[in-house]
């Protein structure tokens, strides 16, 4: 627990706003415990009024039963209220943390996303937060009531009979010991089982997930053989794990039964000896029954708490990842860019010792069309990252409209760029919301107009709900090409002054594509455009082609000029676009 000190400190910060409720909660928990413990005593007292034939003290019994009724109602009320408080506090803390984590997600630099899998972040923001709060608060409440119950039971028992109490107190931990013994021995079996299960699952994910390929290669029989082998291994270690883990319950129950028998035996002699009443014996037996329960719970709670803190630590680890460097205090708003872009001696690398872009300089006049070409990994997409300030340059500077981009707010800079990436991203929302993503207050006419320009209108109209069609999370209900049309429509609507296109037309229906290109042509009119180009027609129409190789711009100029140079571009062109037999 010691190494958790910092984590605990931070957890406490989240709990602080609910201090008042926590105290109410603790009070209610204590009340519940006291009432619960008082019930067996009252029942015992009730039994004591019932002695034998003609020897029942009805007025006393009635009094006790009325008291019992009140206590029972009080217990229930207190317990319910306590549960409500626990829920409220837990869920509110979850909400607070999740909100903060999501806000942080909006602040971390894009490089963080590039370095971390989405699954990793989701498990932190969703699963870890839940586990942490459940474990911590519910665990804490259980621990608290558990300890109180144990102390209370000991107190009540001692007040009745010291010798029998000692018997219970000394014997009960035996069940803990047994449970611990079983747990430590089953751990390995569990480990083996979960490893095998993971092996089985990933085999299923691979083979069933790619069933079509399996069949294409006639791999069915080999696959089945592999699967049956793993599955049988899982069965063998599964039976062991299942059986031995299921031993805990009967074993602890056995110990409890022994304690119970012991109490009955010694208690009976105490009653015979006149040191105790029959009713008190009943109370005792009752206690013996419920005394072990909190012990068993507490042993579970401790692991739960450890787990909760581990989750919290993972979460804080994410929250502590540095946020994007905020905009400078005197950063200007780039209101309306004139379209000029100047890249001056820019160097950049993702990893400190792996240089990528080196001393790049480009001077782009308003309205020019710049095509970037080159082999994979030459730094084309990196240029986009730098222009949009998803990453900041290591050296040199970039100026837009004559102002260094570092001196303007990121939002205003990005607003002046329209971006269509090769990887289409759409929200799981209606088509309308997606088109209006960059301009949420757009009118219906504007949205339809943009869709028409992007040649998306006709397919949208054919969708079952038209513009209100929901796009599924994986975008499964529309084709890749249609997704790209929507991304284009999204940019069409915002009418930015500058465009960044990672030529994304490869999977659009070839014939639609012609129209889209025309629309793009229109859009690019008078706008500065950067295009990561794959298509000859795009390249040939460019005002300037930047030929990149290994992080350098090795050639630039118009298509014909570059061909005449007979350099890298010319050979690239030969090999790529004019295939020889």
């Amino acid at each position, binding site marked *: 627990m010691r190494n958790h000190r910092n984590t605990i400190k931070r957890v406490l910060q989240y709990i602080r706003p609910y201090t008042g409720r926590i105290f109410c909660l603790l009070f209610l928990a204590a009340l519940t415990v006291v009432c619960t413990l008082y019930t067996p005593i009252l029942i015992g007292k009730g039994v004591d009024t019932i002695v034998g034939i003609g020897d029942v003290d009805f007025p006393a019994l009635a009094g006790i039963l009325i008291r019992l009724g009140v206590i029972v109602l009080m217990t229930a009320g207190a317990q319910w209220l306590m549960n409500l408080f626990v*829920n409220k506090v837990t869920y509110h803390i979850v909400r607070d943390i999740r909100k903060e984590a999501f806000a942080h997600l909006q602040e971390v630099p894009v490089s963080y996303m590039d370095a971390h899998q989405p699954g990793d972040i989701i498990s932190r923001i969703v699963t870890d937060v839940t586990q942490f709060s459940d474990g911590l608060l519910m665990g804490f409440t259980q621990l608290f009531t558990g300890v109180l119950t144990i102390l209370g039971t000991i107190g009540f028992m001692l007040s009745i009979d010291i010798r029998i109490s000692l018997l219970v107190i000394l014997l009960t931990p035996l069940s803990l010991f047994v449970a611990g013994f079983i747990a430590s021995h089953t751990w390995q079996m569990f480990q083996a089982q979960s490893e095998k299960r993971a092996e089985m699952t990933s085999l299923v994910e691979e083979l069933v997930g790619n069933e079509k390929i399996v*069949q294409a290669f006639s791999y069915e029989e080999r696959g089945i053989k592999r699967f049956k082998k793993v599955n049988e291994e899982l069965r063998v270690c599964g039976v062991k794990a299942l059986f031995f883990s299921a031993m805990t319950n009967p074993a602890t129950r056995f110990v409890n039964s022994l304690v119970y028998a012991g109490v009955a035996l010694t208690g009976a002699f105490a009653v015979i000896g006149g040191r105790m009443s029959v009713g008190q014996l009943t109370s005792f037996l009752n206690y013996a029954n419920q005394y072990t329960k909190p012990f068993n719970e507490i042993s579970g709670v401790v692991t739960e708490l450890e787990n909760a803190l581990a989750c919290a630590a993972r979460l804080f680890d994410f929250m502590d990842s540095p946020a994007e460097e905020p905009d400078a205090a005197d950063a200007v708003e780039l209101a309306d860019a004139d379209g000029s872009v100047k890249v001056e001696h820019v160097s950049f690398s993702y990893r400190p010792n792996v240089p990528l872009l080196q001393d790049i300089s480009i001077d782009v006049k308003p309205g020019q069309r710049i095509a970037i070409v080159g082999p994979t990994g030459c730094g084309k997409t990196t240029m986009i990252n730098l222009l949009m300030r998803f990453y900041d340059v290591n050296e040199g500077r970039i100026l837009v409209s004559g102002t260094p981009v570092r001196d303007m707010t990121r939002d205003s800079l990005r607003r002046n760029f329209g971006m269509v990436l090769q990887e289409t991203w759409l929200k799981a929302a209606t088509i309308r919301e997606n088109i209006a993503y960059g301009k949420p207050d757009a009118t219906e006419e504007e949205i339809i107009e943009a869709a028409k320009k992007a040649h998306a209108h006709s397919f949208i109209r054919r969708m079952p709900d038209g513009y209100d069609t929901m796009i599924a999370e994986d975008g499964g209900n529309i084709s890749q090409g249609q997704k790209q049309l929507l991304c284009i429509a999204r940019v069409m609507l915002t009418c930015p002054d500058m465009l960044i296109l990672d030529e994304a037309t490869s999977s659009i229906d070839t014939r639609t594509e012609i129209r889209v290109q025309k629309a793009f042509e229109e859009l690019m009119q008078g706008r500065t455009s950067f295009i990561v180009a794959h298509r000859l027609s795009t390249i040939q129409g460019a005002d300037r082609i930047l030929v990149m190789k290994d992080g350098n711009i090795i050639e630039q100029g118009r298509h014909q000029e570059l061909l005449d140079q007979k350099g890298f571009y010319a050979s690239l062109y030969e090999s790529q676009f004019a295939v020889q037999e």
Partner: protein
Amino acid sequence: MNRIWLYLKDYKKEAILAPLFKMLEASFELIVPLVVAGIVDRGIAFHDASYVYKMGLLMAALALIGLTCSLTAQYFSARAAMGFGTGMRNDMFEHINRLSYREIDLLGTPTLVNRMTSDINQVQTGVNLMLRLFLRSPFIVLGAVIMSFTISLKAAWIFVAAVPLISLVIYLIMHVTVPVYKAVQTKLDHISRMTRENHVGARVVRAFGRQKREFEEFTDINEDYTETQIRAGRISALLNPATCVIMNFAIILILWTGGKQVDTGAITTGQVVALVNYMNQILIALVALANLIVAVTKAAASLGRINEVFDTVPSLSDDGNHTQKTIENAPRVEFKDVSFTYAGSRDSAISHVSFKAMPGETIGIIGGTGSGKSSLINLIPRFYDVDSGQVLVDGVPVEKYPFSQLRDEIGIVPQRAVLFAGTIRANMRWGDENASDEEILAALRTAQAMDFVGKLKDGLDHKISQGGTNLSGGQRQRLTIARALTGKTDILILDDSASALDFATDAALRRSIKKDTSGMTVFLVSQRAFSIKNADRILVLDDGELVGNGTHEELMQTCPVYKEICLSQLSEQEAAG
């Protein structure tokens, strides 16, 4: 339900003995209150020390027998449940491997993976719980009620009233909360979805400056989720207190009626104590039963989903087909007036397509998305059956072949470059189990993959992680091409498989395939005109119809669709030449 018995059949002994031993254990548990009553009524009342001793020993013995019974039951149920799950998994795995593309399309592979893993697990857990508790809990409840009848008829009516009342409360609370918890789960899915969206789409979110709005949207969803959770919690928090209240009031009644009964001499004090104890046992059993019902409901839902898979009948099979002798000098692949429609679709994907592909020919297939390119090539290995017409390979209709004979002859490179966990060698041997290293290396060379495989320290022993995530897209694609080339392939199908390659590699690949695979018929599906431009013959598809079949030059003259595609992608003089 039938399916459960089916898989328990091999574990009949276990499946019967497990609940039996559990019930045995329960009966011993039901005796304990009587023993205590005996101690009170006889041992204490008559100061009979030896009787007390005997009873104490009896209780210890009961505990020991209970433990033995319980462990035995536990063992049998673990064996039965695990055996059940294993058998079901094996069968389902085999069943999935018999399904054809049509059924896989309908069910979806992620669904199948879930059915195989989490759903079967859920049912397995359900079976285990059922075997252990399903008889035990009702048995205890029933037993306790019966015991109360043997003690006192007058007190027994309290039990008869309390049991349904507690059951009703449990039922009502579950009835109200289960749908709310489903809503909670859906809302949590929203939270996951938004988190994923904002991670994957960070660039777009920021490009449009939407961070604040996304945050606000998240805050709303988050708030809504919290509220729903609290609402659900409010009701389920009632369960414990409400059932305890009923039970304790029942005990109050027992004490009062018991007192009256003792007063008249109908029962003894010890029996009153026994009645109180029985009531306690009933509550514990009922709560356990409620938890069991929740688990069983979940398992039943899973079982329903599992049945869906098992009930899906493969639409095509090769049962009864034996190895075919191929016809010499026949076209390698021939389509005769083939039409084909996907399940659930009204429009045909391919209509009336006829063509021949000779050994050694390279056939380019081009057309827009949805024009039927992939559908066409999927008919060659008989992944789907045609509606009408005939597909022949080596002169023999494809439905006459055993799948393995037909498909072993065909090497396919799918659109999505998928590799499997294991070494490069193991991946390459997918097409041919017995391929030698030389054959593999030759295939890698042809697929332009040697430049990076050659640089790997451990060469063919290089481990590929699941999904091939430790390789780049282009590297993966080249390996999948090499995989298809390994083995005795006569027909190679590249389904738009070069999209992740840059143009230079793409071109080199096409050259080397041409060079290294004489006699092999190659189908090249592409959206890029220049990839197929130099094929021996080009098939142009438009909306499922074959609108062009010829060389580039011929098609430029005769096929308007092809001309349009080319002009959009190639420069004038390239398209011309």
